[in-house]
Protein backbone atom coordinates (compact mmCIF):
# COMPACT_ATOMS: atom_id res chain seq x y z
CA UNK A 1 0.00 0.00 0.00
CA UNK A 2 2.77 2.35 0.92
CA UNK A 3 4.65 1.45 -2.26
CA UNK A 4 1.54 2.20 -4.31
CA UNK A 5 1.32 5.66 -2.78
CA UNK A 6 4.94 6.46 -3.56
CA UNK A 7 4.48 5.55 -7.22
CA UNK A 8 1.29 7.57 -7.39
CA UNK A 9 2.86 10.73 -6.10
CA UNK A 10 6.18 10.69 -7.91
CA UNK A 11 6.34 14.15 -9.47
CA UNK A 12 7.10 14.36 -13.19
CA UNK A 13 6.82 18.15 -13.30
CA UNK A 14 8.05 20.37 -10.48
CA UNK A 15 7.35 24.10 -10.66
CA UNK A 16 8.90 26.30 -7.97
CA UNK A 17 8.24 30.01 -7.50
CA UNK A 18 7.55 30.49 -11.21
CA UNK A 19 7.26 34.12 -12.28
CA UNK A 20 6.52 35.80 -15.57
CA UNK A 21 6.34 39.54 -16.16
CA UNK A 22 5.64 41.52 -19.30
CA UNK A 23 7.09 44.89 -18.42
CA UNK A 24 5.13 46.07 -15.38
CA UNK A 25 2.47 43.43 -15.78
CA UNK A 26 2.98 40.28 -13.67
CA UNK A 27 1.16 37.47 -15.44
CA UNK A 28 2.45 34.74 -13.14
CA UNK A 29 3.35 35.69 -9.57
CA UNK A 30 5.56 33.03 -8.04
CA UNK A 31 3.54 29.84 -8.30
CA UNK A 32 4.62 26.36 -7.17
CA UNK A 33 3.05 22.97 -7.86
CA UNK A 34 3.85 19.42 -8.81
CA UNK A 35 2.30 17.21 -11.44
CA UNK A 36 2.41 13.51 -10.60
CA UNK A 37 3.44 10.85 -13.02
CA UNK A 38 0.49 9.31 -14.84
CA UNK A 39 -2.24 11.67 -13.66
CA UNK A 40 -4.51 14.09 -15.46
CA UNK A 41 -3.67 17.46 -13.97
CA UNK A 42 -5.97 20.39 -14.56
CA UNK A 43 -5.04 24.07 -14.56
CA UNK A 44 -8.29 25.91 -13.96
CA UNK A 45 -9.16 29.54 -13.88
CA UNK A 46 -10.91 32.36 -15.67
CA UNK A 47 -9.44 33.94 -18.81
CA UNK A 48 -6.33 35.95 -18.00
CA UNK A 49 -5.54 33.98 -14.85
CA UNK A 50 -2.16 32.93 -16.26
CA UNK A 51 -2.99 29.34 -17.24
CA UNK A 52 -1.72 29.51 -20.80
CA UNK A 53 1.39 31.47 -19.81
CA UNK A 54 2.25 28.86 -17.19
CA UNK A 55 1.62 26.06 -19.64
CA UNK A 56 3.72 27.65 -22.37
CA UNK A 57 6.65 28.15 -20.01
CA UNK A 58 6.62 24.47 -19.09
CA UNK A 59 6.28 23.61 -22.79
CA UNK A 60 9.53 25.58 -23.42
CA UNK A 61 7.66 28.01 -25.69
CA UNK A 62 8.05 31.04 -23.45
CA UNK A 63 10.91 32.40 -21.35
CA UNK A 64 10.20 32.67 -17.64
CA UNK A 65 11.18 35.66 -15.54
CA UNK A 66 12.07 33.67 -12.47
CA UNK A 67 11.77 30.37 -10.59
CA UNK A 68 12.63 26.80 -11.59
CA UNK A 69 10.84 24.23 -13.69
CA UNK A 70 11.94 20.60 -13.78
CA UNK A 71 10.30 18.24 -16.29
CA UNK A 72 11.09 14.54 -15.83
CA UNK A 73 14.36 15.44 -14.17
CA UNK A 74 15.33 17.89 -16.91
CA UNK A 75 15.89 21.56 -16.09
CA UNK A 76 14.06 23.91 -18.42
CA UNK A 77 16.92 26.42 -18.37
CA UNK A 78 19.58 24.09 -19.67
CA UNK A 79 17.77 21.13 -21.21
CA UNK A 80 14.84 22.66 -23.08
CA UNK A 81 15.55 20.67 -26.20
CA UNK A 82 15.61 17.38 -24.29
CA UNK A 83 12.28 18.32 -22.74
CA UNK A 84 10.76 18.96 -26.18
CA UNK A 85 11.55 15.35 -27.11
CA UNK A 86 9.51 13.85 -24.26
CA UNK A 87 6.48 16.12 -24.35
CA UNK A 88 3.57 16.58 -26.74
CA UNK A 89 1.98 19.99 -27.09
CA UNK A 90 -1.45 20.95 -28.29
CA UNK A 91 -1.89 24.68 -28.67
CA UNK A 92 -5.05 26.70 -28.37
CA UNK A 93 -6.24 27.17 -31.95
CA UNK A 94 -3.12 25.91 -33.70
CA UNK A 95 -3.28 25.70 -37.45
CA UNK A 96 -1.41 23.50 -39.89
CA UNK A 97 -0.46 23.87 -43.53
CA UNK A 98 -4.00 24.27 -44.88
CA UNK A 99 -3.55 22.43 -48.15
CA UNK A 100 -1.91 19.30 -46.74
CA UNK A 101 -3.78 16.10 -45.96
CA UNK A 102 -3.82 14.64 -42.45
CA UNK A 103 -1.47 11.87 -43.58
CA UNK A 104 0.98 14.42 -44.96
CA UNK A 105 0.78 16.50 -41.78
CA UNK A 106 1.49 13.47 -39.61
CA UNK A 107 4.48 12.64 -41.83
CA UNK A 108 5.69 16.21 -41.24
CA UNK A 109 5.49 15.82 -37.47
CA UNK A 110 7.04 12.37 -37.64
CA UNK A 111 9.98 14.06 -39.34
CA UNK A 112 10.05 16.89 -36.83
CA UNK A 113 10.31 14.34 -34.01
CA UNK A 114 12.60 12.02 -35.98
CA UNK A 115 10.07 9.30 -35.17
CA UNK A 116 8.88 7.00 -37.95
CA UNK A 117 5.17 6.27 -37.53
CA UNK A 118 2.33 4.39 -39.10
CA UNK A 119 0.11 7.32 -40.02
CA UNK A 120 -3.05 5.27 -40.49
CA UNK A 121 -2.64 3.59 -37.10
CA UNK A 122 -2.15 7.00 -35.50
CA UNK A 123 -5.25 8.38 -37.20
CA UNK A 124 -7.31 5.39 -36.09
CA UNK A 125 -6.19 6.00 -32.50
CA UNK A 126 -8.02 9.31 -32.64
CA UNK A 127 -10.87 8.00 -34.78
CA UNK A 128 -9.90 9.82 -37.96
CA UNK A 129 -8.80 6.87 -40.13
CA UNK A 130 -11.38 7.67 -42.80
CA UNK A 131 -10.13 11.27 -42.95
CA UNK A 132 -6.58 10.30 -43.98
CA UNK A 133 -6.84 12.21 -47.26
CA UNK A 134 -8.86 15.12 -45.91
CA UNK A 135 -7.25 18.48 -45.28
CA UNK A 136 -7.06 19.98 -41.81
CA UNK A 137 -9.26 22.93 -42.83
CA UNK A 138 -12.00 20.51 -43.91
CA UNK A 139 -12.35 19.00 -40.43
CA UNK A 140 -15.00 19.89 -37.87
CA UNK A 141 -14.02 21.48 -34.56
CA UNK A 142 -13.93 18.19 -32.69
CA UNK A 143 -12.02 16.47 -35.45
CA UNK A 144 -9.47 19.28 -35.48
CA UNK A 145 -8.86 18.88 -31.76
CA UNK A 146 -8.51 15.12 -32.06
CA UNK A 147 -6.07 15.56 -34.91
CA UNK A 148 -4.10 18.04 -32.80
CA UNK A 149 -3.92 15.42 -30.08
CA UNK A 150 -2.68 12.86 -32.62
CA UNK A 151 0.24 15.18 -33.46
CA UNK A 152 1.12 15.32 -29.75
CA UNK A 153 1.32 11.53 -29.50
CA UNK A 154 3.80 10.95 -32.33
CA UNK A 155 6.94 11.00 -30.20
CA UNK A 156 5.39 8.68 -27.60
CA UNK A 157 5.64 11.49 -25.06
CA UNK A 158 5.73 11.07 -21.29
CA UNK A 159 3.57 14.16 -20.86
CA UNK A 160 1.07 15.87 -23.13
CA UNK A 161 -0.20 19.40 -22.67
CA UNK A 162 -3.68 20.32 -23.85
CA UNK A 163 -4.68 23.96 -23.82
CA UNK A 164 -8.48 24.32 -23.70
CA UNK A 165 -9.02 21.38 -26.04
CA UNK A 166 -12.81 21.34 -25.69
CA UNK A 167 -13.56 25.03 -26.04
CA UNK A 168 -16.19 25.52 -28.71
CA UNK A 169 -17.14 21.86 -29.05
CA UNK A 170 -20.66 20.47 -28.76
CA UNK A 171 -21.46 18.12 -25.85
CA UNK A 172 -20.99 14.94 -27.87
CA UNK A 173 -17.63 16.06 -29.25
CA UNK A 174 -16.51 17.04 -25.73
CA UNK A 175 -17.37 13.68 -24.28
CA UNK A 176 -15.68 11.97 -27.17
CA UNK A 177 -12.54 14.00 -26.50
CA UNK A 178 -12.67 13.13 -22.78
CA UNK A 179 -12.69 9.45 -23.73
CA UNK A 180 -9.65 10.01 -25.92
CA UNK A 181 -7.85 11.83 -23.10
CA UNK A 182 -8.65 8.98 -20.69
CA UNK A 183 -7.26 6.51 -23.22
CA UNK A 184 -4.05 8.52 -23.42
CA UNK A 185 -3.81 8.44 -19.65
CA UNK A 186 -4.45 4.69 -19.63
CA UNK A 187 -1.36 4.26 -21.82
CA UNK A 188 0.68 5.76 -18.98
CA UNK A 189 1.00 9.29 -20.34
CA UNK A 190 0.69 12.20 -17.96
CA UNK A 191 -1.82 14.80 -19.14
CA UNK A 192 -1.77 18.48 -18.22
CA UNK A 193 -4.91 20.26 -19.34
CA UNK A 194 -6.28 23.79 -19.02
CA UNK A 195 -9.97 24.46 -19.09
CA UNK A 196 -12.54 26.84 -17.77
CA UNK A 197 -15.28 24.23 -17.74
CA UNK A 198 -15.61 22.98 -14.19
CA UNK A 199 -17.70 19.95 -15.14
CA UNK A 200 -14.86 18.90 -17.41
CA UNK A 201 -12.29 19.27 -14.65
CA UNK A 202 -14.49 17.34 -12.23
CA UNK A 203 -15.04 14.47 -14.68
CA UNK A 204 -11.56 14.25 -16.07
CA UNK A 205 -8.89 15.49 -13.69
CA UNK A 206 -7.21 13.58 -10.89
CA UNK A 207 -6.04 16.84 -9.37
CA UNK A 208 -6.60 20.46 -10.22
CA UNK A 209 -4.84 23.74 -9.50
CA UNK A 210 -7.10 26.77 -9.48
CA UNK A 211 -5.39 29.91 -10.74
CA UNK A 212 -6.51 33.48 -10.29
CA UNK A 213 -4.59 36.69 -10.94
CA UNK A 214 -1.32 34.86 -11.63
CA UNK A 215 -1.45 32.78 -8.43
CA UNK A 216 -2.45 29.25 -7.53
CA UNK A 217 -5.21 29.70 -4.97
CA UNK A 218 -6.14 26.05 -4.49
CA UNK A 219 -4.66 22.68 -5.39
CA UNK A 220 -6.16 19.26 -4.68
CA UNK A 221 -8.37 16.52 -6.05
CA UNK A 222 -11.75 17.79 -7.25
CA UNK A 223 -13.42 15.67 -4.57
CA UNK A 224 -11.41 17.16 -1.74
CA UNK A 225 -11.96 20.70 -2.96
CA UNK A 226 -15.71 20.10 -3.08
CA UNK A 227 -15.70 18.42 0.33
CA UNK A 228 -13.75 21.32 1.80
CA UNK A 229 -16.24 23.77 0.45
CA UNK A 230 -19.17 21.79 1.76
CA UNK A 231 -17.45 21.43 5.14
CA UNK A 232 -17.15 25.20 5.31
CA UNK A 233 -20.92 25.34 5.34
CA UNK A 234 -21.53 26.11 1.68
CA UNK A 235 -24.89 25.15 0.26
CA UNK A 236 -26.18 25.36 -3.25
CA UNK A 237 -29.08 27.71 -3.63
CA UNK A 238 -31.08 25.17 -5.51
CA UNK A 239 -31.68 21.52 -4.73
CA UNK A 240 -29.48 19.44 -6.98
CA UNK A 241 -31.46 17.19 -9.25
CA UNK A 242 -30.26 13.77 -10.27
CA UNK A 243 -29.65 14.99 -13.80
CA UNK A 244 -28.80 18.28 -15.39
CA UNK A 245 -29.75 19.87 -18.71
CA UNK A 246 -26.71 18.44 -20.43
CA UNK A 247 -27.84 14.94 -19.44
CA UNK A 248 -31.22 15.75 -20.96
CA UNK A 249 -29.60 17.03 -24.14
CA UNK A 250 -27.43 13.97 -24.49
CA UNK A 251 -30.22 11.55 -23.83
CA UNK A 252 -32.35 13.33 -26.42
CA UNK A 253 -29.71 13.65 -29.13
CA UNK A 254 -27.67 10.53 -28.41
CA UNK A 255 -24.39 9.99 -26.67
CA UNK A 256 -22.40 8.84 -29.61
CA UNK A 257 -20.21 11.34 -31.27
CA UNK A 258 -20.94 12.14 -34.90
CA UNK A 259 -19.13 13.69 -37.82
CA UNK A 260 -20.29 17.23 -38.13
Amino acid at each position, binding site marked *: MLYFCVVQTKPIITVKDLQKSYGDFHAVKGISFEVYNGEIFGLLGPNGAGKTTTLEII*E*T*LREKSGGTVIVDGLNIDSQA*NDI*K*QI*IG*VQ*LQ*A*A*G*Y*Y*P*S*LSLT*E*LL*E*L*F*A*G*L*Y*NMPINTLEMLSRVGLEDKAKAKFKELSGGQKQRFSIA*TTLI*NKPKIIFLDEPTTGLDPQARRNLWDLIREVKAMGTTVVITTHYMDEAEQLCDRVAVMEGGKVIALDTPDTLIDNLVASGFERKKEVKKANLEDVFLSLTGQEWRDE
Partner: protein
Amino acid sequence: MKYSQFKAMMAIAKASFRSITRSPSAVVFTLVFPLIFITVFGFLKGGSVTLNVALSSHSDQQNSVYIGLISNPAFSVHHDMDSVEQRTLLLKGKLDAIIDIQKVQLDSSSTYDVNLYTTMASAEKGIIVRSMLEHLIDKSNLSAAKIISPMATLKQQELKGRTYSTIDFILPGQLGFSLLSTGVFGTAFVFFNLRQTLVIKRFFATPIRKPFIVMGEALARMVFAMLGAAFLIALGHYAFGFTLINGLATVAEMLVLSAMGLIVFMGFGFVVSGIAKSESTIPPLANIITLPQFLLSGTFFGVENFPTWLQPICKMLPLTYLNDAMRKVAFEGASLLDLGPQLAVITLWGVIIYAIAVKVFRWE
Protein backbone atom coordinates in the same frame (compact mmCIF):
# COMPACT_ATOMS: atom_id res chain seq x y z
CA MET B 1 19.47 7.72 -31.45
CA LYS B 2 20.66 11.27 -31.74
CA TYR B 3 18.10 13.82 -32.90
CA SER B 4 18.82 14.99 -36.43
CA GLN B 5 18.00 18.64 -37.15
CA PHE B 6 18.61 17.87 -40.81
CA LYS B 7 15.87 15.23 -40.92
CA ALA B 8 13.47 17.61 -39.24
CA MET B 9 14.41 20.36 -41.68
CA MET B 10 13.78 18.05 -44.61
CA ALA B 11 10.36 17.17 -43.19
CA ILE B 12 9.45 20.87 -43.18
CA ALA B 13 10.91 21.33 -46.67
CA LYS B 14 8.81 18.44 -47.99
CA ALA B 15 5.61 19.65 -46.37
CA SER B 16 6.21 23.21 -47.46
CA PHE B 17 6.99 22.13 -51.02
CA ARG B 18 3.73 20.21 -51.20
CA SER B 19 1.97 23.25 -49.85
CA ILE B 20 3.57 25.57 -52.43
CA THR B 21 2.72 23.33 -55.38
CA ARG B 22 -0.91 23.42 -54.27
CA SER B 23 -0.99 27.17 -53.83
CA PRO B 24 -2.55 28.81 -56.89
CA SER B 25 -0.75 32.12 -56.38
CA ALA B 26 2.70 30.51 -56.24
CA VAL B 27 2.08 28.63 -59.47
CA VAL B 28 0.61 31.69 -61.18
CA PHE B 29 3.45 34.01 -60.21
CA THR B 30 6.26 31.57 -60.80
CA LEU B 31 5.06 29.95 -63.98
CA VAL B 32 1.88 31.28 -65.56
CA PHE B 33 2.72 35.01 -65.73
CA PRO B 34 6.25 34.51 -67.08
CA LEU B 35 4.88 31.91 -69.45
CA ILE B 36 2.32 34.34 -70.86
CA PHE B 37 4.94 37.04 -71.39
CA ILE B 38 7.40 34.62 -72.93
CA THR B 39 4.77 33.24 -75.26
CA VAL B 40 3.60 36.67 -76.35
CA PHE B 41 7.10 37.97 -76.94
CA GLY B 42 8.32 34.66 -78.30
CA PHE B 43 5.83 34.94 -81.14
CA LEU B 44 6.71 38.55 -81.90
CA LYS B 45 8.77 38.74 -85.05
CA GLY B 46 12.09 40.25 -84.34
CA GLY B 47 15.09 41.15 -86.50
CA SER B 48 13.85 41.61 -90.09
CA VAL B 49 12.56 44.98 -91.26
CA THR B 50 9.41 45.30 -93.30
CA LEU B 51 8.93 48.47 -95.32
CA ASN B 52 5.32 49.25 -96.08
CA VAL B 53 5.15 51.25 -99.27
CA ALA B 54 2.26 52.08 -101.56
CA LEU B 55 2.51 52.54 -105.28
CA SER B 56 0.53 55.50 -106.54
CA SER B 57 -2.35 54.54 -108.77
CA HIS B 58 -1.02 55.69 -112.12
CA SER B 59 2.50 54.48 -111.71
CA ASP B 60 4.27 52.78 -114.54
CA GLN B 61 4.83 49.13 -113.77
CA GLN B 62 6.91 48.15 -116.78
CA ASN B 63 10.29 49.32 -115.55
CA SER B 64 13.23 47.78 -113.79
CA VAL B 65 12.89 49.97 -110.69
CA TYR B 66 9.39 48.67 -110.09
CA ILE B 67 10.45 45.09 -110.74
CA GLY B 68 13.36 45.52 -108.34
CA LEU B 69 10.95 46.92 -105.77
CA ILE B 70 8.47 44.07 -105.79
CA SER B 71 11.14 41.38 -105.90
CA ASN B 72 12.82 42.70 -102.75
CA PRO B 73 11.36 40.85 -99.72
CA ALA B 74 12.01 43.88 -97.47
CA PHE B 75 9.28 45.78 -99.28
CA SER B 76 5.64 45.13 -98.79
CA VAL B 77 4.09 46.90 -101.76
CA HIS B 78 0.43 47.90 -101.56
CA HIS B 79 -1.48 48.53 -104.78
CA ASP B 80 -4.99 48.50 -103.43
CA MET B 81 -5.42 52.02 -102.08
CA ASP B 82 -6.56 55.26 -103.61
CA SER B 83 -4.40 58.33 -103.21
CA VAL B 84 -6.44 59.77 -100.31
CA GLU B 85 -6.14 56.61 -98.31
CA GLN B 86 -2.44 56.35 -99.08
CA ARG B 87 -1.89 59.87 -97.85
CA THR B 88 -3.82 59.30 -94.61
CA LEU B 89 -1.94 56.15 -93.80
CA LEU B 90 1.38 57.78 -94.62
CA LEU B 91 0.67 60.65 -92.25
CA LYS B 92 -0.17 58.15 -89.50
CA GLY B 93 3.06 56.32 -90.12
CA LYS B 94 1.24 53.13 -91.10
CA LEU B 95 2.80 53.47 -94.52
CA ASP B 96 6.51 54.20 -94.62
CA ALA B 97 6.49 55.73 -98.10
CA ILE B 98 4.47 56.33 -101.26
CA ILE B 99 6.30 55.70 -104.49
CA ASP B 100 5.19 57.14 -107.77
CA ILE B 101 6.94 56.12 -111.01
CA GLN B 102 6.11 58.10 -114.15
CA LYS B 103 7.31 57.38 -117.63
CA VAL B 104 8.65 60.40 -119.44
CA GLN B 105 8.54 60.02 -123.24
CA LEU B 106 11.43 61.68 -125.00
CA ASP B 107 11.93 61.72 -128.75
CA SER B 108 13.46 58.36 -129.28
CA SER B 109 13.72 56.86 -125.81
CA SER B 110 11.99 57.07 -122.51
CA THR B 111 13.11 57.85 -118.97
CA TYR B 112 11.38 57.61 -115.65
CA ASP B 113 10.74 60.01 -112.84
CA VAL B 114 10.62 58.30 -109.49
CA ASN B 115 8.81 60.40 -106.89
CA LEU B 116 9.19 59.42 -103.27
CA TYR B 117 6.93 60.67 -100.49
CA THR B 118 8.02 59.99 -96.94
CA THR B 119 6.82 61.21 -93.58
CA MET B 120 8.05 62.36 -90.20
CA ALA B 121 5.73 59.76 -88.73
CA SER B 122 8.06 57.04 -89.97
CA ALA B 123 11.31 58.89 -90.42
CA GLU B 124 13.76 56.05 -89.92
CA LYS B 125 12.09 53.69 -92.33
CA GLY B 126 11.69 56.53 -94.82
CA ILE B 127 15.46 56.84 -94.91
CA ILE B 128 15.84 53.13 -95.53
CA VAL B 129 13.25 53.24 -98.31
CA ARG B 130 15.11 56.14 -99.88
CA SER B 131 18.51 54.47 -99.87
CA MET B 132 17.13 51.20 -101.19
CA LEU B 133 15.27 53.02 -103.89
CA GLU B 134 18.40 54.94 -104.84
CA HIS B 135 20.22 51.66 -105.15
CA LEU B 136 17.55 50.28 -107.50
CA ILE B 137 17.70 53.42 -109.62
CA ASP B 138 21.51 53.30 -109.77
CA LYS B 139 21.37 49.71 -110.90
CA SER B 140 18.89 50.57 -113.64
CA ASN B 141 20.97 53.52 -114.74
CA LEU B 142 24.13 51.44 -114.93
CA SER B 143 22.48 48.84 -117.06
CA ALA B 144 20.83 51.48 -119.27
CA ALA B 145 24.25 53.03 -119.80
CA LYS B 146 25.57 49.57 -120.59
CA ILE B 147 28.33 49.81 -118.02
CA ILE B 148 29.51 46.29 -117.37
CA SER B 149 32.49 47.06 -115.21
CA PRO B 150 31.58 49.86 -112.84
CA MET B 151 34.22 51.95 -111.20
CA ALA B 152 33.56 50.63 -107.75
CA THR B 153 31.69 47.62 -106.50
CA LEU B 154 30.74 46.90 -102.93
CA LYS B 155 31.78 43.54 -101.57
CA GLN B 156 30.23 42.75 -98.25
CA GLN B 157 31.36 39.93 -96.04
CA GLU B 158 29.04 38.99 -93.28
CA LEU B 159 30.75 37.48 -90.27
CA LYS B 160 28.66 34.68 -88.91
CA GLY B 161 27.39 35.90 -85.57
CA ARG B 162 24.58 34.77 -83.33
CA THR B 163 21.09 35.94 -84.03
CA TYR B 164 19.86 37.85 -81.04
CA SER B 165 16.11 37.38 -81.01
CA THR B 166 13.44 38.86 -78.77
CA ILE B 167 13.29 35.72 -76.65
CA ASP B 168 16.98 36.11 -75.78
CA PHE B 169 16.12 39.42 -74.18
CA ILE B 170 12.70 38.59 -72.74
CA LEU B 171 13.34 35.22 -71.15
CA PRO B 172 16.08 36.26 -68.70
CA GLY B 173 13.94 39.23 -67.69
CA GLN B 174 10.90 37.05 -67.10
CA LEU B 175 12.98 34.55 -65.20
CA GLY B 176 14.25 37.35 -62.97
CA PHE B 177 10.73 38.64 -62.43
CA SER B 178 9.46 35.17 -61.60
CA LEU B 179 12.20 34.78 -58.98
CA LEU B 180 11.47 38.23 -57.59
CA SER B 181 7.76 37.65 -57.13
CA THR B 182 8.03 34.12 -55.78
CA GLY B 183 10.81 35.27 -53.45
CA VAL B 184 9.07 38.35 -52.09
CA PHE B 185 5.37 37.43 -52.15
CA GLY B 186 5.80 33.76 -51.38
CA THR B 187 8.14 34.23 -48.45
CA ALA B 188 6.21 37.15 -46.99
CA PHE B 189 2.87 35.36 -47.05
CA VAL B 190 4.19 32.02 -45.84
CA PHE B 191 5.99 33.36 -42.80
CA PHE B 192 3.20 35.76 -41.95
CA ASN B 193 0.64 32.95 -42.13
CA LEU B 194 2.78 30.41 -40.30
CA ARG B 195 3.08 32.94 -37.50
CA GLN B 196 -0.57 33.96 -37.60
CA THR B 197 -1.94 30.41 -37.57
CA LEU B 198 0.53 29.30 -34.87
CA VAL B 199 2.02 26.65 -37.15
CA ILE B 200 5.47 27.99 -36.37
CA LYS B 201 4.71 27.96 -32.63
CA ARG B 202 3.68 24.32 -32.91
CA PHE B 203 7.05 23.68 -34.59
CA PHE B 204 8.79 25.35 -31.65
CA ALA B 205 7.27 22.75 -29.37
CA THR B 206 9.15 20.06 -31.30
CA PRO B 207 12.93 19.66 -30.98
CA ILE B 208 13.73 21.44 -34.25
CA ARG B 209 15.78 24.63 -33.84
CA LYS B 210 14.57 27.93 -35.28
CA PRO B 211 17.17 28.34 -38.05
CA PHE B 212 16.28 24.91 -39.40
CA ILE B 213 12.61 25.91 -39.66
CA VAL B 214 13.57 28.89 -41.80
CA MET B 215 16.02 26.82 -43.84
CA GLY B 216 13.42 24.11 -44.43
CA GLU B 217 10.92 26.66 -45.69
CA ALA B 218 13.56 28.39 -47.81
CA LEU B 219 14.73 25.10 -49.27
CA ALA B 220 11.20 24.24 -50.41
CA ARG B 221 10.82 27.62 -52.10
CA MET B 222 14.26 27.26 -53.64
CA VAL B 223 13.50 23.83 -55.12
CA PHE B 224 10.17 25.06 -56.46
CA ALA B 225 11.70 28.19 -58.00
CA MET B 226 14.59 26.22 -59.53
CA LEU B 227 12.18 23.73 -61.11
CA GLY B 228 10.19 26.69 -62.43
CA ALA B 229 13.35 28.30 -63.80
CA ALA B 230 14.48 25.09 -65.47
CA PHE B 231 11.03 24.72 -66.99
CA LEU B 232 11.00 28.28 -68.35
CA ILE B 233 14.50 27.89 -69.81
CA ALA B 234 13.62 24.56 -71.42
CA LEU B 235 10.39 25.93 -72.87
CA GLY B 236 12.14 29.05 -74.16
CA HIS B 237 14.89 26.97 -75.73
CA TYR B 238 12.82 24.30 -77.42
CA ALA B 239 9.74 26.30 -78.33
CA PHE B 240 11.18 29.73 -79.10
CA GLY B 241 14.85 29.13 -79.82
CA PHE B 242 16.24 30.79 -76.70
CA THR B 243 20.03 30.84 -77.08
CA LEU B 244 21.95 28.66 -74.64
CA ILE B 245 25.43 29.25 -75.80
CA ASN B 246 27.17 26.48 -73.92
CA GLY B 247 24.18 24.16 -73.64
CA LEU B 248 23.68 22.51 -70.28
CA ALA B 249 26.62 24.36 -68.73
CA THR B 250 24.78 27.60 -69.47
CA VAL B 251 21.61 26.21 -67.90
CA ALA B 252 23.59 25.28 -64.79
CA GLU B 253 25.10 28.76 -64.57
CA MET B 254 21.68 30.36 -65.01
CA LEU B 255 20.33 28.20 -62.20
CA VAL B 256 23.19 29.26 -59.93
CA LEU B 257 22.34 32.88 -60.70
CA SER B 258 18.65 32.15 -60.10
CA ALA B 259 19.46 30.69 -56.70
CA MET B 260 21.53 33.74 -55.76
CA GLY B 261 18.77 36.07 -56.87
CA LEU B 262 16.10 34.09 -55.04
CA ILE B 263 18.04 34.18 -51.77
CA VAL B 264 18.26 37.98 -51.97
CA PHE B 265 14.58 38.31 -52.93
CA MET B 266 13.53 36.03 -50.07
CA GLY B 267 15.35 38.45 -47.81
CA PHE B 268 12.90 41.14 -48.97
CA GLY B 269 10.09 38.68 -48.22
CA PHE B 270 11.34 38.16 -44.65
CA VAL B 271 11.42 41.92 -44.15
CA VAL B 272 7.87 42.31 -45.48
CA SER B 273 6.56 39.48 -43.27
CA GLY B 274 8.23 41.16 -40.32
CA ILE B 275 6.86 44.67 -40.83
CA ALA B 276 3.38 43.77 -42.14
CA LYS B 277 0.78 44.44 -39.48
CA SER B 278 -1.92 42.40 -41.14
CA GLU B 279 -2.32 40.09 -44.09
CA SER B 280 -3.81 42.87 -46.22
CA THR B 281 -0.72 45.07 -45.84
CA ILE B 282 1.49 42.41 -47.41
CA PRO B 283 0.49 42.95 -51.07
CA PRO B 284 1.11 46.73 -51.06
CA LEU B 285 4.43 46.33 -49.28
CA ALA B 286 5.49 43.54 -51.61
CA ASN B 287 4.38 45.54 -54.63
CA ILE B 288 6.49 48.50 -53.53
CA ILE B 289 9.46 46.16 -53.81
CA THR B 290 8.53 44.20 -56.92
CA LEU B 291 6.78 46.70 -59.24
CA PRO B 292 9.60 49.25 -59.64
CA GLN B 293 12.01 46.45 -60.33
CA PHE B 294 9.58 44.86 -62.75
CA LEU B 295 9.48 48.11 -64.73
CA LEU B 296 12.94 49.57 -64.24
CA SER B 297 15.25 46.58 -64.18
CA GLY B 298 15.35 45.75 -67.85
CA THR B 299 12.65 43.13 -67.75
CA PHE B 300 10.94 44.26 -70.93
CA PHE B 301 13.34 46.80 -72.38
CA GLY B 302 16.93 47.67 -71.76
CA VAL B 303 17.80 50.05 -68.94
CA GLU B 304 19.55 52.29 -71.50
CA ASN B 305 16.12 53.21 -72.93
CA PHE B 306 15.18 55.11 -69.79
CA PRO B 307 15.85 58.84 -69.44
CA THR B 308 19.22 59.60 -67.94
CA TRP B 309 17.77 60.94 -64.68
CA LEU B 310 16.06 57.59 -64.10
CA GLN B 311 19.04 55.43 -64.92
CA PRO B 312 20.86 55.84 -61.60
CA ILE B 313 17.77 54.39 -59.92
CA CYS B 314 17.66 51.52 -62.41
CA LYS B 315 21.29 50.87 -61.68
CA MET B 316 20.65 50.50 -57.97
CA LEU B 317 18.12 47.69 -58.20
CA PRO B 318 19.22 44.11 -57.64
CA LEU B 319 17.03 42.73 -60.42
CA THR B 320 18.87 44.92 -62.95
CA TYR B 321 22.08 43.09 -62.14
CA LEU B 322 20.46 39.68 -62.10
CA ASN B 323 18.89 40.29 -65.53
CA ASP B 324 22.17 41.62 -66.84
CA ALA B 325 24.12 38.66 -65.52
CA MET B 326 21.55 36.20 -66.93
CA ARG B 327 21.77 37.73 -70.41
CA LYS B 328 25.55 37.75 -70.37
CA VAL B 329 25.65 34.11 -69.35
CA ALA B 330 23.00 32.88 -71.76
CA PHE B 331 23.85 34.89 -74.83
CA GLU B 332 27.44 35.98 -74.58
CA GLY B 333 28.63 32.83 -72.90
CA ALA B 334 30.16 34.72 -70.01
CA SER B 335 31.13 32.49 -67.12
CA LEU B 336 30.18 33.34 -63.57
CA LEU B 337 33.80 34.45 -63.03
CA ASP B 338 33.34 37.19 -65.63
CA LEU B 339 30.39 38.61 -63.74
CA GLY B 340 32.26 40.10 -60.82
CA PRO B 341 30.48 43.49 -60.78
CA GLN B 342 26.99 42.02 -61.14
CA LEU B 343 27.54 39.36 -58.51
CA ALA B 344 29.12 41.91 -56.19
CA VAL B 345 26.06 44.17 -56.33
CA ILE B 346 23.66 41.24 -55.84
CA THR B 347 25.71 40.03 -52.88
CA LEU B 348 25.81 43.52 -51.39
CA TRP B 349 22.01 43.69 -51.61
CA GLY B 350 21.87 40.29 -49.91
CA VAL B 351 24.03 41.52 -47.03
CA ILE B 352 21.98 44.69 -46.58
CA ILE B 353 18.57 43.05 -46.80
CA TYR B 354 19.41 40.20 -44.42
CA ALA B 355 20.86 42.67 -41.94
CA ILE B 356 17.45 44.39 -41.98
CA ALA B 357 15.56 41.07 -41.98
CA VAL B 358 17.34 39.91 -38.84
CA LYS B 359 16.26 43.15 -37.13
CA VAL B 360 12.59 43.15 -38.15
CA PHE B 361 11.78 39.43 -38.40
CA ARG B 362 9.28 38.26 -35.81
CA TRP B 363 8.69 34.71 -34.66
CA GLU B 364 5.32 35.42 -33.07
